[in-house]
């Protein structure tokens, strides 16, 4: 973990509620990791997954859901942010096999972007399923295609792509391993529907984001883990569903 001051270089809407922010500064953030952002007037930092990291530019994509993200939405290029970076374990690329499947739901899509980029760079044949509620919420379809991934979009109301959930799009797909990130009901469904080993990125309300407070603990077959430090990525075989 490192504490860095980043400069906002871009903060634009991708959909009605989802924003993309680009930050300039030095970082060694890996795919599947997250950053924890200090915002003026708010006590706890806000954890946001890393979407991409190229040179000195870090990209994050966030959904405006509350006070913290409302405040982030108003930020302009040139403003500075106090960020704890390189948090969490990240995805394990070594387990991908030759044709990994990446499954993202809603704001669970962003962390898969850098993962897809790196897997393609490593010569893998990458398939991506992006799940949303409706066509108006779809983002990053073209960006994933531009990387060279085979992209399937699924919408719950059928207004774009496959009608149904990401698990409907998974049917009949041939893959060596899976990586997923999304809301917990989706993760559970992918857990049941998946036919290979894989890993899932979890979300939890965090205190510190670096393993000190035990605020975001979960039980696994290997004992208690902290989502922020031992996760957010857990392997399929270790997950114990609690709720």
């Amino acid at each position: 973990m490192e504490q860095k001051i980043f400069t906002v270089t871009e903060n634009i809407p991708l959909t009605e509620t989802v924003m993309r922010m680009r930050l300039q500064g030095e970082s060694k953030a890996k795919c599947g990791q997250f950053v924890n952002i200090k915002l003026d007037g708010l006590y706890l930092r806000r954890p946001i997954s890393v979407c991409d990291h190229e040179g000195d530019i870090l990209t994050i994509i966030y959904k405006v859901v509350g006070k913290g993200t409302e405040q982030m939405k108003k930020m302009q290029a040139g403003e500075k942010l106090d960020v704890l970076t390189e948090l969490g374990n990240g995805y394990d690329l070594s387990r991908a096999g030759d044709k990994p499947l990446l499954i993202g739901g809603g704001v669970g899509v962003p962390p898969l972007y850098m993962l897809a980029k790196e897997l393609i760079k490593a010569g893998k044949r990458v398939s991506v399923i992006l799940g949303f509620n409706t066509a108006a919420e779809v983002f990053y379809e073209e960006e994933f295609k531009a990387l060279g991934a085979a992209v399937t979009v699924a919408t719950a109301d059928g207004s774009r792509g496959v009608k149904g959930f990401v698990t409907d799009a998974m049917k009949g797909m041939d893959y060596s391993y899976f990586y997923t990130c999304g809301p917990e009901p989706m993760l559970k469904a992918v857990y049941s529907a998946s036919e290979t080993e894989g890993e899932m990125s979890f979300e939890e309300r965090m205190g510190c984001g670096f393993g000190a407070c035990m605020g975001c603990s979960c039980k696994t077959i290997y004992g208690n883990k902290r989502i922020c430090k031992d996760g957010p990525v857990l392997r399929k075989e270790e997950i114990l569903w609690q709720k």
Partner: protein
Amino acid sequence: MAEMKVELCGVELDNPVIPASGTFGYGYEFAELYDINVLGTFSFKGTTKDPRFGNPTPRIAECSAGMINAVGLQNPGVEKVISEELPKLKKCFHKKVMANVSGFSVEDYAYTCERLDKCEEVGWLEVNVSCPNVHGGGMSFGTDPKAAAEVTRAVKKVTTKPVIVKLSPNVTDIVSIAKACEDAGADGVSLINTLLGMRIDLKTKKPVIANKMGGFSGAAIFPVAVRMVYQVAKAVSIPVVGMGGVSSAEDVIEMMLAGATAVEVGAANLVDPFICRDIIRDLPEVMKKYKINALKEIIGGCL
């Protein structure tokens, strides 16, 4: 030259700054970030006789100038703390550590304290009779002077190291509890633990925290903490460790003027992991500004 040394229950500290239990783990997450030997000491994660997962999640909530936690004493249990955590800690921390202990019965407290008292790394036992997040234990001992005294006596009987009883602010009269602990043989008291609090999510219309309520901490509680430290320090003759919302070198000095011999820093560590290092770095400059030569000279300066 600013003199920062203080003496806590017969053990000298290089400075009065102590990360509070539950915000510093067993130290090594922070040892990756800076040399934690700059600290006076630190109070490690609340340890119980048996391993505990704690409460269901979510167990953290944001508040104005603070936060609520309802972790519920997650810890690996005293045997694992002794066999695994302390040896790891020893590699990165070369001072005496404060062992924070919680329990569900008088026997639990005595057992866990007796085990940790024998560890050479341990300099003080901080007996938490004030955790608001566990039922049938913790705070129920700290809200009744008789029960707090009983825990203190039982622990003192089986230990040799200084016993500091950590008190709850969720009481009508904290002074009577502090005095009961002093009379039962406590070598010091530390206060305040978190204030019982609650948040409700307007979207779901349900409590944010799975356990509904939790302990409120952070900068917002500082004035309450200063007031209680002042009241207790006036009434007892044993050392008082002050805590609650401390986030700067100025706060440390204010706490000491209220009567604290040493000062714990809690929630602030979670927002800024370098805060204790920075407070220690800033103290000499702030002391100079307020014409303080030695911190020990200002303890209880406003009593």
